[in-house]
């Protein structure tokens, strides 16, 4: 059948809802970045604002490290993803799901945990291991185990999206490993490539791990230079120029890959599930899971004795972080539903808003954060800037794209005819959205909420520059304590964060499982 696709007439209701969503994107991404550019163009200049030679060296070093992390995440993540897609038995799949846990935590926790294992005065302390950990190799290792779950999850989703007949046809002519290597993984390549783009971007933005492991990288140097009281917009832009260029390349890549992935994404629950894993694959997946979990176990073990000592350090930081993450996730989901729906249905200017939000995600974290400071600190918005609201404002700009993209991908998998039928029955845009679109995609709604919540709970690099006085989240407090706090207290606080994150994520996960 020649199904007509393309722009459908949009109603006044839809335009109003999308305009509200666009206003949120404008206030959280366009205005901050615009204010930064304005400040750079018209602000006072000084001689020391030129890019120093060392910046280029650091930038090259950071790119090299990020490439190392790409290799690490590929080696760890792809086999684990295959195992996740194949495992049918609950216990095995649950064990493998634990491998995904580090994704929900700040990567610095893994560095902290690893330091408890091999650092000075620890169980497996040795000079060599310590040297390895506190250096580029340690950075690549920690970031690889922290971000391998991104690759695993996307490999899993990619394999689950394949038509089972693709594998069945290949199985008639080739062995299992060959089918996997020559048919299934290449067919899932867009998903894996998208994961690698995300890994690269997250590695370049990472701040806490290099600071903790004392590795000189670009993001930490930029933060050190601009995180002071007198950050100059011109300096921020100049210093960030190399990474802005890389961000735009990543953005373009991600944009193309998102489109490919969304076209392929039709989850088939039985696709390949239950196929024997094979001892090599199982061993490899087990190693990936153990590598990710061991530092966390060490962290909790080290912190267990210091829980009571850590409580006074907590203050309101757990609540600050949780509250900001929940408000951000709610706001991002609220704009993500109409925008994601409109993007999937081909509305051009929704795509423009989506592109703005993607810029917020791929732009250097420190740049967006400085933009938030520049735009919101002063004038009528001072009140919002001084309140806890500034955290969700900055975080929506940074992570709002995740909600939009999640819902867009999901909407593309749902036949437009459901909405057409409702429209022909006389239902307006909002009624269709609330009664048809959202109920049909409630899992995507929860996924969008959970994804944004996860990224907010692990965020350090954005909120550290503009959290309100006394309103810092636990991740930021930990970042400041890591340098000079007692290791026991730091580990205990990190363990508490792990617990709070697990509790916060348990609700959407439980709801999805209950729905299934």
């Amino acid at each position, binding site marked *: 059948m020649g*199904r007509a696709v393309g722009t459908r007439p949009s*109603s006044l209701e839809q335009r109003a809802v999308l305009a509200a969503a666009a206003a949120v994107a404008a206030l959280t991404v366009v205005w901050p970045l615009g204010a930064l550019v304005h400040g750079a163009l018209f602000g006072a200049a000084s001689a020391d604002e030129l890019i120093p030679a060392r910046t280029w060296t650091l930038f090259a070093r950071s790119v090299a490290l990020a490439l190392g992390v790409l290799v690490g995440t590929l080696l760890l993540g792809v086999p684990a993803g295959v195992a996740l897609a194949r495992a049918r038995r609950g216990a095995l799949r649950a064990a493998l799901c634990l491998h995904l846990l580090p994704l929900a935590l700040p990567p610095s926790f893994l560095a902290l945990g690893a330091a408890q294992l091999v650092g000075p005065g620890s169980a497996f302390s040795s000079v060599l291991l310590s040297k390895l950990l506190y250096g580029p190799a340690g950075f690549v290792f920690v970031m690889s185990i922290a971000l391998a779950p991104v690759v695993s999850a996307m490999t899993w989703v990619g394999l689950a999206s394949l038509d089972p007949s693709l594998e069945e046809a290949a199985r008639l002519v080739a062995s299992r490993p060959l089918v996997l290597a020559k048919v299934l993984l290449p067919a899932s390549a867009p998903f894996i490539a998208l994961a690698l783009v995300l890994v690269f971007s997250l590695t370049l933005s990472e701040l806490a791990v290099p600071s903790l492991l004392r590795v000189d990288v670009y993001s930490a140097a930029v933060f050190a230079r601009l995180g002071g009281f007198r950050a100059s917009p011109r300096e921020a832009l100049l210093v960030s120029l190399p990474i802005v260029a890389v961000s735009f390349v990543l953005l373009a890549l991600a944009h193309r890959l998102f489109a490919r992935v969304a076209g392929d994404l039709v989850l088939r629950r039985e696709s390949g599930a239950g196929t024997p894993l094979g001892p090599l694959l199982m061993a490899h997946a087990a190693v990936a899971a153990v590598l990710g979990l061991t530092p966390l176990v060490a962290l909790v073990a080290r912190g267990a004795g210091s829980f009571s000592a850590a409580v006074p350090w907590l203050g309101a930081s757990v609540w600050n972080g949780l509250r900001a993450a929940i408000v951000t996730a709610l706001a991002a989901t609220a704009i993500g539903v109409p925008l994601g729906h409109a993007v999937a249905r081909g509305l051009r200017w929704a795509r423009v808003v989506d592109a703005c939000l993607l810029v917020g995600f791929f732009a250097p974290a420190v740049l967006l954060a400085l933009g938030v400071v520049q735009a919101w600190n002063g004038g009528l918005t001072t009140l919002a800037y001084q309140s806890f609201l500034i955290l969700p404002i900055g975080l929506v700009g940074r992570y709002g794209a995740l909600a939009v993209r999640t819902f867009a991908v999901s909407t593309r998998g749902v*036949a437009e005819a459901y909405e057409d039928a409702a*429209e*022909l*029955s006389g239902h307006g845009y909002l009624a269709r959205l609330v009664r048809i679109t959202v109920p049909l995609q409630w899992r995507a709604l929860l996924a969008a909420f959970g994804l944004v919540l996860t990224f907010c709970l692990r965020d350090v690099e954005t909120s550290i520059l503009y959290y309100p006085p006394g309103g810092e989240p636990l991740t930021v407090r930990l970042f400041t304590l890591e340098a000079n706090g007692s290791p026991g207290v730091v580990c205990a606080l990190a363990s508490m964060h792990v617990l709070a994150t697990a509790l916060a994520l348990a609700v959407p996960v439980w709801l999805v499982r209950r729905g299934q």
Partner: protein
Amino acid sequence: MKAVDLAAVSVREGERQLLDDVSFSMAPGESLAVAGPSGAGKSTLLRVVAGLRVPASGRVHLRNVLVNDAGRVLVPARRRGLAMVFQDLALWPHFSVRGNLAFALEASGMPSAERDRRVEETLDRVGLAGFGTREVLSLSGGERQRAALARALVTKPDLLLLDEPLSSADALIKRAMLTLIRDLLSERNTSAIIVTHDASEARALSKRLLCLEAGCVVADDTIEALTKKPPTPFLGAFLG
């Protein structure tokens, strides 16, 4: 009065001309079968009439009311008083059978007692009495076809659009459904446009056939006349 009147309607998508200067009209109560090769613009034509697609140019009248004029939507889809049976049926899976019909009536502002009565009456008419509480996904293929038809007819539309509604039905179900659709259309004097790839469907539901090729109308006549002298090779093959 004309039930449907399209004058010089064109639809473009990027470089592709989906419909090119399409004109035709239908009398009230008339059925029109639309055929053509894949990608000829049949579904686009239905979506233009439904108001789900805005034509770049041309005019569309429904019951003498101008609903589209030169790229402008004057009457949106939800106010056109028509219903559609989709190729994949598009029954809302999160509603029961009754819920599907009730939701279709909800926007009409009908009192709930009247709505319930209409739903039961329609289910009864299509042979689904007692199926109201069933989940859509638990229905067989034939039952789903009937439920989709019931949802379309429950609003008592003036015009029914059918987009290859029986393409996935087996021969037995198809025969029963064709009889049911024909009876329902004639007893309510409902106009219908039926997009089909099956000449027997076209013959069973309509006397007239409009053929589209590459977005253009290449034939618009009675099926009998077109069978005797098919103007294009496609129609020759289609009508046997």
